[in-house]
């Protein structure tokens, strides 16, 4: 749980540094929330949307040979949504008002992305260097979530549906 706390502290620091920030969310590239500071939004939905838009962004940078994905800025009539890469397994999504200083948003967003990447990387290598007890007591959702690095970033996990143990019996009189 230590990673979540550290990442959340980073998000709260961001809110102090950018006054027009209305929400922030750190998620894994496959759409699981790491930490969020986004009151009035649905963090799970936002993380899932981020993963979806990230998939397109990865393919876009790839198809146009622009190198690795760095950031994504979406502007609506009333504000901005910015997504920054935070290492290979995490992303940072920021919500801001329309009158935000985008230059500052980029500076702080990029900086925070790097910091969150470090925190996540430290958590992945953490168990070897200590905190064994902490991990044994409670398995970290992040570690299990981001452990699957076999499939390329930006593709969705393929789920094979399990056949039910026995055929469900049709309900009596269900269709009448």
């Amino acid at each position, binding site marked *: 749980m230590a990673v979540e706390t550290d990442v959340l502290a980073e998000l709260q620091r961001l809110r102090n540094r950018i006054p027009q920030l209305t929400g922030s969310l750190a998620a894994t590239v496959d759409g699981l929330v790491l930490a969020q500071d986004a009151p009035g939004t649905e963090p799970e939905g936002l993380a899932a949307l981020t993963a979806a838009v990230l998939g397109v962004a990865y393919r876009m940078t790839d198809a146009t040979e622009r190198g690795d994905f760095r950031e994504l800025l979406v502007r609506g009539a009333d504000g901005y949504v910015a997504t920054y890469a935070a290492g290979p397994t995490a992303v940072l999504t920021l919500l801001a008002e329309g009158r*935000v*200083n*985008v*230059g*500052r*948003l*980029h*500076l702080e967003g990029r900086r925070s992305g790097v910091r969150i990447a470090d925190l996540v990387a430290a958590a992945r290598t953490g168990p070897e260097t200590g905190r064994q007890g902490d991990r044994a007591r409670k398995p970290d959702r992040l570690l299990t979530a981001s452990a699957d690095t076999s499939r390329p970033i930006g593709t969705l996990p393929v789920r094979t549906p399990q056949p039910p143990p026995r055929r469900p019996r049709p309900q009596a009189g269900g269709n009448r």
Partner: protein
Amino acid sequence: MANLETSLKECLSSIDGATAAALVDYTSGMALGTLGGSKNFNLEVAAAGNTDVVRSKLRTMEHLGLKEEIEDILITLNTQYHLIRLLKGRSGNGLFLYLVLESSRANLAMARHQLRRIEAELDV
């Protein structure tokens, strides 16, 4: 009429002591063009930070009920002058020129005069 690149170049070549220049959009805080600067002096950071300066001043004037326009802003450091000059006219709305001067080599009056001329000729 001069374009952006020419104007920034002219800032550094014709103004004594100038070390960096940028044209910044203070509605977004992003730089339209930068020239000069170094690894230790990131003009993107300067653009974002000085956007807050300009916005702050405009807001203060609004609160004071002043119906005036900012012509320029001078910030004096130990060894540097930072000059911010807001662009006038339709095409320059929401933009400012940012100039960094080394105070030992610069002539402030001359620098302001030159910057005014460059700003008047700039066509974004």
